[in-house]
């Protein structure tokens, strides 16, 4: 046990270090360069503003969203015993997206405040989960294959609905939707940043409580039952958790793909299949990966800015193909 624990702790330490380095890099780099010493002791008010009002909130949001998406990915992959599953393939992201779009178009947020964004995201994600669940439940049991297919179909339908909304809406709404959809960590509202951070950390802690159950799930639902896991209850709880995490992320940062797919995959290769370490390490890796991608997104064609979803798509997609071909050999 000691050897395993030492191994796990050293991986965590390495990942924490990497995340810290990425964070400091992200604070320094940008259209205005800030040296490392200035971070701890900013010389003028403008630097201070840039550091703590613009860059730091983005980093915190990147940390929270990256971690939450990776966690949702690990949970779903654990439940389905399928490495290709993530919030997007199950249609959870799509469902959340449709509802956030409706919120923008119908201007509900102007009446009830920004809190309606995460709520509409969660409602959309939750509705999709319930819908997929009802459609693929047979004789009181969840059919995993059916669920996966239904999920993919729902994600197609929801992207079409988003297109439809974009086609018929007024031009001033369009810009907001387009930028939001491609994924952006720019969130002027500090309340949303704080809330996302809180939800994300809480989600990680709750999922860690289920890490042993997820380990049991790795040999099939019936085996998990034989190991004393209340299969149906655990499945439902974890689905809700994954949809809360996804819904909140989509509502503040748009649809950012590949984090939930790629990060858990990479971590499995590095730290192994045990969810007790996989959840924590994937959270950290997802956080670091998204902060890094966001830094690239705002510097690569500076002073212009790319949507972060483009970066994660390109990096994540190519790495994923590499991993797949390497595994196939």
């Amino acid at each position, binding site marked *: *046990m000691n050897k395993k624990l030492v191994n796990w702790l050293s991986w965590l330490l390495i990942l924490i270090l990497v995340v810290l380095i990425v964070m400091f890099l992200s604070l320094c780099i940008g259209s205005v360069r800030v040296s490392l010493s200035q971070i701890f002791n900013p010389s003028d008010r403008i630097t201070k503003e840039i550091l703590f009002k613009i860059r730091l909130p983005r980093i915190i949001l990147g940390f929270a969203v990256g971690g939450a998406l990776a966690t949702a990915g690990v949970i779903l992959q654990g439940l389905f*015993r399928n490495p290709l599953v993530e919030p997007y393939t199950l249609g959870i992201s799509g469902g959340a997206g449709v509802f956030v779009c409706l919120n923008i178009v119908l201007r509900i947020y102007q009446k009830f405040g920004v809190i309606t964004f995460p709520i509409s995201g969660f409602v959309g994600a939750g509705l999709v989960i319930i819908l997929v669940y009802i459609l693929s439940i047979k*004789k009181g049991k969840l059919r995993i294959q059916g669920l996966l297919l239904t999920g993919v179909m729902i994600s197609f339908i929801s992207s079409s609905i988003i297109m439809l909304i974009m086609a018929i809406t007024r031009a001033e709404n369009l810009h907001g939707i387009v930028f939001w959809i491609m994924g952006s960590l720019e969130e002027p509202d500090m309340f949303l940043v704080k809330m996302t951070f809180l939800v994300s950390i809480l989600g990680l802690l709750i999922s860690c409580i289920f890490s042993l159950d997820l380990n049991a799930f*790795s040999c*099939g639902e019936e*085996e998990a039952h*034989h190991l*004393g896991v209340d299969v149906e209850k655990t499945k439902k709880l974890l689905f809700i958790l994954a949809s809360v995490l996804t819904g909140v992320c989509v509502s503040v940062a748009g649809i950012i793909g590949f984090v939930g797919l790629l990060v858990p995959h990479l971590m499995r290769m590095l730290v*192994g299949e045990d969810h*007790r370490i996989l959840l924590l390490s994937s959270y950290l890796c997802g956080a670091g990966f998204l902060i890094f991608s966001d830094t690239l997104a705002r510097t690569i064609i500076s002073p212009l800015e790319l949507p972060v979803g483009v970066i994660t798509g390109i990096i994540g997609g190519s790495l994923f193909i590499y991993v797949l071909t390497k595994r196939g050999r």
Partner: protein
Amino acid sequence: MLEIKNLVCGYDNFLLKDINFKVNSSELVGIIGPNGSGKTTLIRAITKLVKPKEGKIIYQGKDITELSFKELAKEIAVVSQDVHFPDMVKVKDFVLLGRIPHFKKFQFLETNKDLEIVEEVMKLTGVLEIKDRFLKETSGGERQLVLITKALAQQPKLLLLDEPTAHLDITHKIKILDLIRRLNKKYGLTVLIVLHDLNLASQYCDRLILLKEGKIYKIGTPSEVLTYQIIEEVYQTVVVVKENPINLRPYVFLVSEEERRKFDYTD
């Protein structure tokens, strides 16, 4: 140890009916019967995967519906056919999963005691030498042994096995059944085992439960159950039963259509 009273359970298209039997402590009982006679359903009922519609399943004086899944998993371990083997997990880590029912609430790390037990059962079943292999590097026979080892890591008092020797070569068949017999004799483990092969059932089991179309057709010692009249009635095929000279238990010979004509074995 295990008592089943007037059990009715099953699905829309299949029902087990009027199931009554007892399994005593340290007994090795075999369940036999044709395909679709309800053997697996019976195992699933005992492990609470199928709810009883009527009747009771009593384990050590307690109705199993009153026991939580976790309490049950500490007492009863199952080697089922429907298992997913995660490729990239090492044998020793897979066996360690068997300790999950014994983890306390909010306990995340295995104790030294858990590791000792895992080491011990791996030694017992002989998988110790392959403990560092990934599951994808093991053969079908080795996997079955690993699965039994995981079940033993649960430290069960009752072990249920659903056709543990299906698809295995004779070397592994004997190896696995010898192991189960040894566990039963040496450690007093109570075993309820589903077997398709009547001769293996005859060879290894103290008593046999023969199922036909969801009902118990006959319970008794192998000599009582495995007579040609009973087998021909239940399986609707012609057989010859002789005494096995090695263990003096019944041995079932299957008779092909051609042989039937040749020797004029007709009903």
